[in-house]
């Protein structure tokens, strides 16, 4: 970005004395903002009453129409992360974070205009398309930078950032509700004003992250850390070019593992409130179910840090083995908990499942680093996020359609989820096999010295710097 040189990678190289512990807060500045997407549902009901105010008018938007806003945003997240991953990797974290801030805040402002003039297509474009690009760029932008700053503990470092994405809804939901209450009057629902304020807050917050973030100087390593000179069984010391990674079976095995883990989690996460009430009729109320959702979100967030940090000690492959084995056992146990009426057992099973759902997201960047090296890990991570997009379709479809099929065929509601639980358990068997097939990447996929030089020259050209700067 010649017009804003401050954003270039070359201008964000840390000077001696810079603490690497400044980078996780910078990453959190981004993830705590873009994770708002998980709380977007708080706007659904108010947005169905923008015209009618006290109740929905015929010209008001419906819930299914509004549901597309989130779906478009998540689809664009995966698409933009895959499409712009290489640009993010080669341009450095600052320009990606800055662009993400512009898109994310801009998405809110455009959506505010859409709400104000009551045109849903503008909201789709604003939050869904523009905001979705902000989501994708923001999600992957700090990942490789953190891995480079924490070569000794990459899981913990990326776990901290991705924990922010899981925890953002805790802030966004009450903040959005409070802002809407301030702007809502007897004749007006304050959604547009809330969007503008949120856009402004998020822009400032994300810009702080953009200012703080630094990339380590070439050759930098943490004090007392000796990088391995020899590749270990499952941790490479070489790099794989972003599009060459797609040609390896390892990429697709990890893609399947992530897709399975997310499918299992996201399916029940979206249906957790109704499922808990239907499995324990009269014992779990709507209010208690809301409490369960809150607790589940908290465990989802904590699991991101816990499992990713644990993977630094037990290894990435073993961490996913834990997810697959524990997930299989817990999903098999859920119908039993329902049959004996154990609410505690049911809650414990799902809370552990939610930690692994979050842990799967947070551990995968380090898994990719182990397999494909650090150079293009951010871009490869961007490509892998398509597994999330696919799981976003598989998970809810599996849970909702099988439940409905069972109910239509006379199965009591309390048992309508049993088959789904066993299917989810079966998915973990597929994930287990895929994870077991992950071996070290064949040397023919490693970047050769001449490829390194060419890529370095290309990168330097983009940054206006001589190669090696």
């Amino acid at each position, binding site marked *: 970005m010649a017009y804003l040189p401050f954003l270039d990678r070359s201008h964000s190289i840390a000077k001696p004395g810079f603490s690497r512990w400044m980078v996780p807060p910078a990453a959190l500045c981004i993830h705590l903002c873009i994770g708002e997407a998980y709380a977007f549902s708080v706007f659904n009901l108010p947005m169905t009453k923008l015209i009618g105010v006290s109740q929905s008018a015929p010209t008001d938007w419906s819930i299914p129409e509004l549901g597309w806003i989130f779906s478009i945003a998540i689809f664009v997240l995966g698409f933009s992360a895959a499409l712009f991953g290489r640009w993010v990797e080669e341009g450095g974290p600052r320009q990606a974070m800055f662009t993400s801030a512009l898109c994310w805040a801009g998405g809110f402002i455009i959506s505010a205009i859409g709400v104000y003039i009551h045109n849903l297509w503008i909201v789709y474009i604003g939050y869904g398309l523009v905001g979705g690009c902000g989501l994708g760029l923001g999600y992957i932008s700090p990942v490789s930078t953190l891995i480079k700053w924490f070569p000794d503990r990459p899981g913990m470092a990326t776990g901290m950032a991705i924990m922010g994405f899981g925890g953002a809804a805790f802030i966004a939901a009450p903040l959005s509700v409070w802002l809407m209450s301030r702007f809502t009057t007897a004749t007006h629902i304050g959604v547009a004003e809330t969007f503008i304020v949120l856009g402004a807050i998020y822009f400032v917050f994300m810009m702080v992250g953009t200012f703080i973030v630094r990339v380590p100087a070439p050759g930098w390593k943490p004090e007392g850390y000796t990088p391995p000179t020899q590749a270990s069984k499952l941790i490479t010391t070489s790099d794989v070019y972003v599009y060459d990674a797609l040609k390896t079976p390892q990429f697709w095995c990890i893609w399947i593992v992530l897709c399975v883990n997310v499918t299992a989690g996201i399916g029940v996460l979206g249906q957790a409130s109704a499922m808990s009430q239907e499995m324990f009729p009269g014992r779990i109320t709507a209010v208690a179910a809301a*409490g369960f959702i809150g607790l589940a979100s908290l465990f989802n967030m904590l699991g991101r840090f816990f499992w990713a940090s644990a993977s630094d000690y037990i290894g990435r492959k073993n961490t996913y083995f834990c997810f697959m084995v524990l997930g299989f056992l817990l999903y098999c146990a859920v119908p039993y908990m329902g049959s004996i009426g154990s609410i505690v057992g049911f809650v414990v099973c799902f809370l552990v499942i939610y930690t692994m759902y979050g842990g799967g997201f947070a551990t995968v960047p380090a898994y990719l680093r182990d397999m494909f090296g650090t150079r293009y890990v951010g871009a490869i991570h961007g490509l892998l996020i398509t597994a999330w997009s696919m799981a976003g379709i598989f998970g809810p479809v599996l849970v909702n359609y099988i439940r409905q099929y069972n109910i239509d065929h006379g199965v009591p509601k309390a048992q309508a989820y049993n088959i789904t639980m066993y299917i989810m358990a079966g998915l973990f068997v597929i994930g287990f096999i895929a994870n077991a097939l992950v071996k070290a990447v064949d040397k023919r996929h490693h970047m050769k010295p001449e490829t390194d030089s060419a890529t370095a020259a290309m990168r330097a050209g983009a940054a206006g710097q001589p190669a090696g700067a």
Partner: protein
Amino acid sequence: MADSNQQTGTTGLQLALAWLFVGIPLTWGVIQTLMNAMKLFQ
């Protein structure tokens, strides 16, 4: 735009401010969530 890389070292105050900047809203959100989650046990 001034280059913020003019500084060379990170001070303890900068580190504390950076972590508080993200830590305070996150802690507030977690407390709000825990208060709601208590309804599960009531």
